[in-house]
């Protein structure tokens, strides 16, 4: 029987998690009622005892709580945790007002970071291509990317600008560039420092523009060589599908005239022909060094953005039913106007809003909060603080403040979260031994930042991260760092890297309280934000109560042990670190 291959002129119905059918932004959505009275919904599945508000908020808009951020929130003005948390959100929305010198000092030349302050041109000429066009040796090529990765880990642990770090992670994934792609690594400092980070709470149109002109993206999605004679549509397709309108607004092989108009006259989606037109508009947007000729006849390639008029298609482009014209007076006008259209399009703003809500609230966020965030984005699409305004809407919503356990922490979030609780002191100096071990082991977890292979970024739904391999690799990483004691290759670099003992003595100053039962409850509540159920408590206390590692598990939960010594056969301090690490392996630690 013949198959009917006539294109079916309808959008696929999408209504499972993550791929929901696009619902149109209503023109004047009601502002959501913002309540600050936080409570857990009764359908919460994540924990028998739900975590407290400060714990929840730090687990969702930060890389998890640590002693200093919890203490900081508690001393903010306000009579209740709710008002203190509001003050914390306001602080975090204005990261430039937060003094982060202590963190930034870890990223200096004295700590082995030598590329983070190099200009775009220096990165190109000192790490990628020599004057004759040859590439540098591997260690030079990868150094800038390595330093960005290590800086990302260090900022995750130590930065007080935690929301900025979460936003940088979000936008890096939104405009994902895999550092496995050849030629990306030398220029990645530029991409992180100048393209993504200045705009994470700023303006989307500006970030899109900087991404389009960045050496990394021009290399990664091949637009650097896109020319009128035979367009390369790789970047054009991803701009529409992944960066702006989103796949839900892709109407496939339909005539553009058949795409419905909304009330404001926007075509509600894009079709295959729009991708081709977008590719034409992108021709000639390139960089110095993208052509062999850039290295000939004594020319010096710089890696800087370069518009090549002779590669640009000067014809008229029709995108979403609108015509865009080339003029010799302003040859980049056509693409810039298309970027304007994409940035202000309701489909783009709803797509961005849904992704933000999925990142910070739930795998399946409610329509009302998506609409509210989308509305804020769109009303302010030209505002320099557009994204900050949208995040304020999101973070002060009931949906954000009251939900728990509707997402799992991804491996990187679990590892940084554990490091924050452990107050992990490792230097992550690019030139110091064992830094590489941390770096390479992250790959095993399935979430080395900046290495997701495809341009769509790491998945942000629970189902992807419920894999046995990722689970075991993440546990092992935490298992190792919880007792790791080296910060260099020299014998005198050997010292414990966690502050578990210090935190225990601060929290339980009376030595009589150093019983297995109290140590378990103290650390469990600190890491999970609530007390354990009795089964979990007993299993952990059995581990903590053993007085001989050769005959482990079981013993008196209620007699105090001496934590000032670490002697055979009980090794009380090492036992404490092992018990604390095990709390990071519980299902409860997965939730955020």
């Amino acid at each position, binding site marked *: 029987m013949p198959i009917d291959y006539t294109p079916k002129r309808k959008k696929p*119905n999408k209504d499972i998690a993550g791929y929901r059918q696009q619902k149109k932004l209503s023109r004047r959505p009601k502002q959501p009622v913002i309540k600050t009275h936080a409570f857990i919904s009764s359908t919460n599945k994540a924990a028998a005892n739900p975590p407290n508000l400060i714990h929840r908020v730090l687990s969702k808009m930060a890389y998890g709580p640590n002693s200093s951020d919890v203490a900081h929130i508690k001393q903010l003005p306000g009579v209740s945790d709710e008002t203190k948390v509001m003050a914390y959100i306001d602080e975090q929305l204005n990261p430039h007002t937060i003094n982060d010198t202590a963190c930034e000092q870890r990223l200096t030349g004295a700590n082995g970071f030598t590329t983070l302050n190099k200009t775009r041109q220096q990165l190109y000429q000192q790490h990628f291509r020599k004057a004759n066009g040859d590439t540098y040796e591997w260690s030079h090529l990868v150094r800038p990317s390595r330093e960005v990765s290590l800086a990302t880990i260090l900022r995750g642990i130590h930065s007080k600008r935690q929301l900025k770090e979460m936003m940088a992670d979000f936008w890096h994934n939104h405009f994902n560039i895999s550092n496995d792609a050849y030629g990306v690594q030398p220029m990645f400092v530029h991409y992180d420092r100048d393209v993504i980070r200045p705009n994470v709470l700023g303006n989307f149109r500006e970030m899109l523009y900087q991404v389009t002109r960045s050496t990394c993206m021009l290399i990664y999605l091949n637009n650097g*060589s896109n020319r009128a004679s035979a367009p390369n*549509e790789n970047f054009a397709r991803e701009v529409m599908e992944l960066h702006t309108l989103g796949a839900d607004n*892709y109407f496939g092989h339909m005539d553009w005239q058949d795409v419905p108009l909304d009330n404001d006259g926007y075509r509600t989606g894009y079709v295959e022909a729009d991708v081709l037109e977008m590719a034409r508009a992108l021709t000639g947007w390139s960089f110095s060094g993208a052509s062999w000729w850039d290295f000939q006849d004594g020319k010096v390639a710089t890696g800087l953005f370069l518009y090549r008029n002779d590669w640009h298609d000067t014809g008229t482009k029709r995108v979403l039913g609108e015509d865009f014209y080339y003029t010799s007076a302003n040859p980049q006008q056509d693409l810039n106007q298309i970027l304007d259209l994409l940035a202000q399009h309701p489909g783009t703003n709803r797509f961005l809003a849904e992704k933000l809500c999925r990142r910070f609230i739930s795998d399946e966020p409610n329509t009302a909060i998506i609409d509210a965030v989308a509305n804020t984005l769109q009303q302010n699409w030209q505002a320099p603080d557009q994204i900050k305004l949208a995040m304020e809407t999101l973070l002060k919503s009931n949906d954000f403040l009251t939900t728990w356990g509707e997402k799992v922490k991804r491996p990187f979030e679990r590892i940084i979260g554990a490091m924050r609780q452990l107050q992990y002191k490792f230097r992550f100096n690019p030139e110091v031994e064992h830094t590489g071990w941390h770096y390479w082991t992250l790959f095993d977890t399935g979430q080395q930042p900046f290495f997701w292979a495809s341009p769509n970024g790491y998945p942000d739904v629970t189902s992807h991260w419920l*894999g*046995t391999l990722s689970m075991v690799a993440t546990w092992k990483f935490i298992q190792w760092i919880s007792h790791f004691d080296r910060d260099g290759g020299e014998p005198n670099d050997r010292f414990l890297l966690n502050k578990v003992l210090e935190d225990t003595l601060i929290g339980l100053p009376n030595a009589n309280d150093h019983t297995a039962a109290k140590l378990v409850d103290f650390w469990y509540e600190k890491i999970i934000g609530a007390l354990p159920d009795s089964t979990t408590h007993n299993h952990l206390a059995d581990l903590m109560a053993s007085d001989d590692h050769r005959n482990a598990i079981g013993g008196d939960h209620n007699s105090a042990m001496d934590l000032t010594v670490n002697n055979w056969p009980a090794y009380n301090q090492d036992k404490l670190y092992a018990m604390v690490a*095990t709390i990071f392996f519980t299902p409860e630690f997965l939730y955020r």
Partner: protein
Amino acid sequence: MKKINRRQFIQGSGVITLSGLGGLQLGMARNLLGTNDGPARDLLVYVFLNGAMDGLHMVPPRSGNDYNYYRNDLRPNLHIANTESLALNGQNAFGMHPAAAGMADLFNRNKMAIVHATGLSQSNRSHFEATKYMELGAQDLGATAGTGWLTRYFQSSLHTPENALIPSVIPGDANSAAFLGDPTALAVNDPEDFTMSKGHWAWGASQAETLNRLYENPNSPEATVGHQALYTSQVIQSIDWDNYQAGNNAVYPDSQLGDQLKTVAQLYRSDIGLEVAYVPTGGWDTHDGQSYRFNNLAAELSAGLSAFYEDLHAHHPGRFTIVVQSEFGRRAYQNSANSTDHGYGNPMFVIGDTVNPGFHGQFPGLAANELFEGGDVNVTTDYRDVISEILMKRMRNRFLGYIFPDYNNYNPLNIVQGDDMTPIFDANYDPIFASGFD
């Protein structure tokens, strides 16, 4: 650590599931089938070439009008000349990429079938969309109820033993959406490393034991994954990975794909009930530098499949079927980087002792008016026809409408040997009906 009943944790989807039926009725269904474990079936190995492998580069035209269009009009700077492509037995029209000698050899030894111009029934040139449709097994995603096609395969597989230790494996970094909703699917990269081995020397063992106790009775999908990880870790550590001798002295390529396929072969040999292996591999998105990049990819794939076939054949002759496909093919004409953009129709490869060798399906032609939207090889075979034939003839599962919810038109091409079955296209799954009214 005890083995949990994995089916209990495969999410129900509002339809009747085995766990919903309970053991009694399940046993009745089995009795009606006349066996507890079902007939001996194959290991299904599904190799997915992420990024869209260029079928016109892997299986290039060698003669006739299509060759002329290909060489002169579509790909003047990219084609594989017919003086370079490898000849295939009894074939004039198509050859094999010169780096894929192992695949040509499998074809010429009658161990490979190639199906022309397969793909999704509706074109979609997005990697992520097309891949998602294939992983979830439907283009109408609402019909999948949040499960992958292999999850639904196992939900409806009457022959999978309840005591199978590790019926499914993904040798890779992460789970695949093909197993969405099945937290028991085993994703494992380096099996020897799959154990909690980084504890403190004095307390690591007690810590691991505490972990086992914490996960003994999982009560959520998240906890079930932890349980399964700890359980399968113990199974895997009982296997002697170091001293593995591949059958027929097969030599796997020293590459990620080589390691992945070797892991599958070792697990299959270990009698842990392996039934489906999903092998993800990538790098095929050749928008630039295609000649060089494809050469390496084809060589790795070919050497890997060749060794894998030899290894499996030595110990399980006639008891495995390997399927190789991409989300779509690439544009028929070259782009500005003498490479290719996204396209549509693409060949599928089926490898095993029980294939009906040679070419199957219809090549739609490369003339301008034969190309899809003027640029792509068209699709003439719904890829689900290929997989469904294997599911029925080799895996003995005929719940095609449950596995592929928007599929109701089975057109077998006689690619593999075996008894065909009457397909059931109901979107709901009912084993009583299936066994009682066949």
